[in-house]
């Protein structure tokens, strides 16, 4: 394929995007919603994914949720709102940023912008055990979101879609900002759990965002909660004991590391009580 002498190239197939990425290297960047690259990377060649069919598709059935990389926060929120197991995702997609940005920023942009440390969708999808499907020049691969976030994929790739298994679990997403809106979150906790008929939570999956450079699961805390009857107070105590061992708080202009760690136990407790509330409601 001949490389068009243009600074914004709209491709219609994923393979074209990969081809261009390989050839142009550092001088090019993928553009999804544009809300990051328009602020950070204006001198590079934009490879726009907007004209690729199917990438905005979202399918939701009893078994699985599949979200295309180009689905916006708003699209995702509209699709999953009301699904009890996906509440964390609905909150992450529906409450982050601002209404106009939610109509523009995409799932792919949120998960693939490695310089962005406060992504909301990342911890929500970690708590929901999501898998990502990538397209690379050597073909399609599917891996857990956790692996994708932990180990940078350095080869040119396009995140194609994300798959979330449907369950009878409950989930919640708690984000802390200094103002009531308009900030990137300083710390995020997403949590999903199985709820036994007696109302107790089990098999917790806890993900923490914005505290470090990348969202990640809080396995140590999950282990402490394993097979225990967890209340929001008991989990808070565990979280308080573990937070500074398990995380190194990120110092940045919007907030200091100590503060991000200090609030984590309360956010975890909040997530647990949110889940318990929805469980009672359901």
């Amino acid at each position, binding site marked *: 394929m001949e490389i068009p002498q*243009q*600074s*914004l190239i*709209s491709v219609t197939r994923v393979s074209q995007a990969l081809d261009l990425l390989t050839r142009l290297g550092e001088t090019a960047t993928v*553009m999804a919603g*544009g*809300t990051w690259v*328009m*602020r950070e990377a*204006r001198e590079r060649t*934009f490879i*726009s994914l*907007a004209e690729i069919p199917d990438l905005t598709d979202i399918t939701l059935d009893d078994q699985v949720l599949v979200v295309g990389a180009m689905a916006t926060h708003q699209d995702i929120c509209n699709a999953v709102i009301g699904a009890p197991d996906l509440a964390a995702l609905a909150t992450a997609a529906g409450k982050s*940023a*601002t*209404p*106009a*940005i939610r*109509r*523009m920023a995409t799932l792919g942009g949120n998960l693939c912008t490695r310089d962005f440390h406060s992504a909301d969708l990342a911890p929500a999808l970690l708590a929901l055990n999501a898998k990502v499907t990538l397209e690379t020049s050597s073909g399609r691969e599917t891996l857990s979101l956790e692996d994708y976030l932990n180990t940078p994929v350095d080869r040119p790739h396009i995140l194609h879609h994300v798959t979330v298994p449907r369950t009878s679990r409950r989930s919640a997403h708690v984000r802390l900002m200094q103002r*009531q*809106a*308009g900030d990137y979150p300083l710390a995020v906790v997403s949590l999903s759990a199985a709820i036994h008929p007696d109302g107790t939570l089990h098999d917790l999956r806890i993900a923490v965002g914005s505290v470090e450079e990348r969202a990640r699961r809080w396995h140590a805390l999950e282990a402490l909660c394993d097979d225990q009857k967890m209340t929001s107070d008991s989990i808070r105590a565990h979280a308080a004991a573990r937070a500074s061992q398990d995380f190194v708080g990120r110092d940045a202009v919007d907030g200091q590391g100590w503060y991000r760690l200090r609030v984590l136990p309360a956010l975890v407790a909040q997530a647990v009580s949110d889940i318990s509330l929805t469980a009672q409601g359901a």
Partner: protein
Amino acid sequence: MVLTLMINGDPVPYHGDPRRSLLEVLRDDLHLTGAKDVCGEGFCGACIVQIDGVPKVSCLLPVGRLAGAEITTIEGVSNSETLTAVQKAFLEYDVVQCGMCFPGMVLSMTHFMAENPSPTRAELKSAMTGNICRCTGYERIIDALLSLGSNGLGPVEEVRP
């Protein structure tokens, strides 16, 4: 890159770098200065325009992606004879101060009111979080919008507590 933009119903040829923001093109090339360049990074909403009827921040929209889209700027939503209901309410409630945020405010809230004809105060406030105003403190703008809702009070003379 050469492309045609549809702005307020008129086809407008564009020749230039497709990565430029719609905001720059509107203001600098077309002298449509209603959309304001305030933060340049998506936070304030002063540059909001409607793309196919949906409010988006024009500072983060590259023009190269807008061929074929219907772009409506504040200049295109009304003329002075036919203000929209939202503009009328803002006028009647005397909520404008310096005015810089209002083009974006009008375009955002017109869309929101069309989708949510009877919003609550809390819903209106959430919907307004991407439209920052440094002057007014918002609440009187909300009062004006509440008056439009189907459970609104209708334009009332200000009652002082």
